[in-house]
């Protein structure tokens, strides 16, 4: 409807260019991964034969699915009740409960894994204290640690999804059911649950995909439990020289697994899309007495555990350490001194690459969402599909795809900073596009037409009229892309080369060497780099960062 005669060519050219870039840096590398899983190796299909016959690969797939199931159930067990009580009841300390799980969203996984180890690892603060009391704690490595850390990392997704669904529920439906003779609890069960369930299930399946793609926690805590993401990375690292086919095969398996779950999620969401008439939200009921205390205590405990990483990384950063030996209780600034004076490169690299990726990602997201929502061209569906594709890809897969595609040939990027920026940009593409397009749907076409009608050419109308209205969501997208990119590990650890370490990579390496105090110091810097922009965006632009997440 809005295709105006003179400007059509500009948009067509831009969308063709953008689609071309996405195909080159996203679709083509993924295709290379899948193709080389069949063609690579000693003979065609050798990778798949090994996958099916060598026990550890099938065990890794089984472990990944099992861990995904455990964490999904655990996340639902924490996230759903917390969301329900936060939406429907008032209790002491509720304000804190309502906001704090959101802040844990920004805690990087690598820091979560590290700080749990600092508390419960073999030399952890809590482990040692318990040992002094004569209580032996089971090793935190393996299933126990994996399940606990991932559950407390990912339950917030279920919490947010459920909270939004319950808040959007029209309480008049429940009242109608009561009016028709159902007692309150039955009414709630029969009316609220079916309406909210699809959203809850969708967020659970999202958690499953995140677990399947998780690299940091899986590698740091997995040790004797082989997991798909870890084996993929190991196949990549040990690949040079030996048999390169397993990295592609395992990457293809993980693409298939995540794609299958996302497909299921889409079906759940589309089947559960009831038309919800904008109704009255429920008034939270105030709880008193024992119930209130129990609820506040339970919620408080969950929140406290969620915040454990923030607290312990801060403690660790200022704690004196000699090599791997941490002297709890001895405070120092030496850790910061060391990383800022002796090894500032990871900090500078992070800022440089994440800064470039954010700027690039925002430009692409703004343009792509505009071309998807407002200026449909024959390329728009391509942009739409490709910009959501990275959701089905773990960082490891994206990294491997870029490395095997741009290792040699006419466009050799291996060993450059550009490949890190591209990996970041591709990985966070869905975030940017989803956020930028969320407001675009609410901007009527007439706004732009009014401007054009008043004599301002189409391209300038976009900048003068549409862009200012999009600005808050662009800022939100920028902050999200930045914060998640600063903390990115799984793709960058695959594509980086010596001298181009970022903070998460450095933290990862320090944890592997058991140098927790230094890792914590980087962690604190990283958290500052994440929290300051969020704080600024919320204060200056009044942006709701978590609205579209």
């Amino acid at each position, binding site marked *: *409807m*809005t*295709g*105006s*005669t*003179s*400007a059509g060519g500009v948009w067509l050219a831009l969308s063709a260019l953008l689609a071309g870039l996405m195909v080159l840096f996203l679709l083509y590398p993924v295709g290379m991964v899948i193709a080389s899983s069949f063609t690579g190796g000693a003979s065609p299909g050798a990778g798949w034969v090994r996958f099916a016959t060598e026990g550890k690969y099938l065990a890794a797939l089984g472990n990944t699915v099992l861990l995904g199931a455990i964490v999904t159930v655990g996340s639902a067990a924490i996230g759903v009740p917390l969301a329900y009580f936060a939406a429907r009841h008032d209790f002491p300390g509720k304000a804190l409960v309502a906001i704090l799980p959101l802040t844990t969203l920004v805690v990087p996984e690598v820091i979560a894994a590290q700080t749990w180890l600092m508390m419960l690892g073999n030399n952890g603060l809590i482990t040692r204290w318990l040992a002094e009391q004569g209580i032996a704690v089971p090793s935190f490595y393996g299933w126990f640690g994996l399940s606990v850390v991932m559950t407390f990392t990912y339950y917030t997704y279920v919490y947010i999804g459920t909270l939004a669904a319950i808040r959007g529920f029209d309480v008049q439906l429940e009242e109608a059911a009561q009016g028709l003779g159902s007692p309150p609890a039955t009414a709630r069960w029969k009316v609220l649950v079916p309406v909210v369930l699809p959203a809850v299930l969708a967020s659970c399946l999202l958690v499953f995909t995140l677990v399947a793609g998780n690299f940091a926690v899986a590698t740091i805590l997995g040790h004797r439990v082989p997991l798909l993401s870890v084996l993929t990375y190991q196949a990549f690292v040990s690949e040079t020289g030996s048999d390169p086919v397993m990295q592609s095969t395992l990457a293809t398996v993980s693409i298939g697994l995540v794609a299958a779950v996302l497909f299921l999620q889409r079906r759940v969401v589309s089947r559960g899309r009831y038309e919800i008439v904008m109704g009255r939200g429920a008034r939270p009921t105030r709880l008193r007495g024992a119930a209130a205390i129990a609820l506040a205590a339970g919620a408080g405990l969950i929140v406290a555990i969620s915040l454990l990483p923030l607290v312990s990384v801060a403690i660790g950063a200022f704690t004196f350490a000699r090599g791997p030996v941490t002297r709890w209780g001895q405070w120092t600034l030496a850790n910061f001194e060391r990383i800022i004076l002796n090894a500032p490169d990871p900090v500078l690299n992070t800022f440089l690459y994440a800064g470039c990726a954010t700027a690039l990602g925002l430009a692409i997201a703004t343009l792509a969402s505009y071309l998807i929502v407002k200026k449909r061209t024959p390329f728009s569906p391509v942009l739409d599909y490709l910009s959501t594709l990275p959701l089905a890809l773990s960082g490891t897969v994206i990294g491997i795809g870029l490395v095997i595609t741009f290792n040699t040939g006419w466009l050799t990027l291996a060993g450059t900073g550009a490949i890190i920026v591209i990996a970041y940009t591709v990985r966070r593409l869905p975030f940017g596009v989803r956020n930028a397009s969320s407001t675009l749907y609410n901007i*009527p076409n*007439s*706004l732009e*037409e*009014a*401007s*054009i*009608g*008043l*004599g*301002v*050419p*189409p391209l300038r*109308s976009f900048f003068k*009229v549409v862009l*200012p*209205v999009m*600005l808050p969501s662009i800022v939100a997208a920028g902050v999200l892309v930045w914060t998640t990119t600063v903390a990115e590990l799984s793709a960058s650890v695959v594509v980086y080369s010596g001298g181009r370490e970022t903070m998460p990579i450095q933290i990862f390496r320090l944890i592997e060497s058991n140098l927790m105090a230094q890792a914590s110091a980087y962690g604190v810097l990283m958290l500052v780099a994440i929290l300051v922009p969020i704080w600024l965006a919320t204060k200056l632009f009044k942006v709701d960062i978590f609205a579209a997440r």
Partner: protein
Amino acid sequence: MVAVTIEGLGVGYGATRIIDGLSLTIASGSFFTLLGPSGCGKTTLLRTLAGFVPVGAGSLRFGDRDVTQVPPHRRDIGMVFQDYALFPDKTLFDNVAYGLRARRVEEGAIRTRVGEALERVGLSALGARRPAELSGGQRQRVALARALVIRPTLLLMDEPLSNLDAKLRLQVRETIGELQREAGITTVFVTHDQEEALALSDRIGLMREGRLEQVGTPQDIYRAPVSAYVADFVGGANTLKVELPRSVGAGGPRAVPLGGGTVSTEVPEDLRAGAAMLLARPEDIALGAPEAGGVPATIVARQYLGGVTRYTVALATGQRLAVALHGGDHDRFRADQAVGLVFHPERTRLVAA
């Protein structure tokens, strides 16, 4: 002030033609309304005039200037939208000044002209506000000021009143009429509301499936509809199938048989014997005693509406029609009462079936 000439216009998305072979001339300085139900192509025609929809065939001229291939931002139009389309991040002043700034009018002149424009729509005190702080009626006044302040060649309005409640609709309608007369700008107004069209327009083009069914003054359209479609859409009318006997020649008034009686009306030249359609508005039919003559009928239902009573009557053939009486004892007839229908001879029309 220019005339608008549309010749053989064809518009379509893909294979479907939304407008096909439409020709129309809109007189300079006049208020022209495109009226019709949703999906008839009226908004597409307006958007084609604005340049947002590409022309598939034919030509468009504003005065002597051929604008068929001119992009919208060079057509010098003022457009008012159904959803106001005010720039939400800009103040009222900046909204109204937007088109002037695009035309590089100097800032001093902008201040004067925007001030005048806001004053004319009664919002001069609110220049510093943003659209979100205004009511719907106020927003549409701003949109009107924004469109008029650039003194456009052509003013285009796309259902500007349909998002407003009934009372505001009347107020803004008056404002639109006054401002258009004052400015004398050629105006094309799109609506599906016949009352708006009758109240505001110099001429009305009634659209049906991408073409113009009838073009004329409000009086023409109301009093002399060319088809049952027009009569029914504007004002509402009874449409009655009749058989014209061979003996009835053209001219009038002639007696046309209907349901055991006769209706006296003019028979147009081009109408042949056979099936035809009789159009009669409810208020153009009188009820009398059956003995007094007219078409025999029975009253089926009756709605007393204060100033007027609406009756549903059935003919002997089973055909039903609506009759509206006002003045005097308009509520004197009862259900099941036998009556005689007398059709107003000048206002009852015969058209081809």
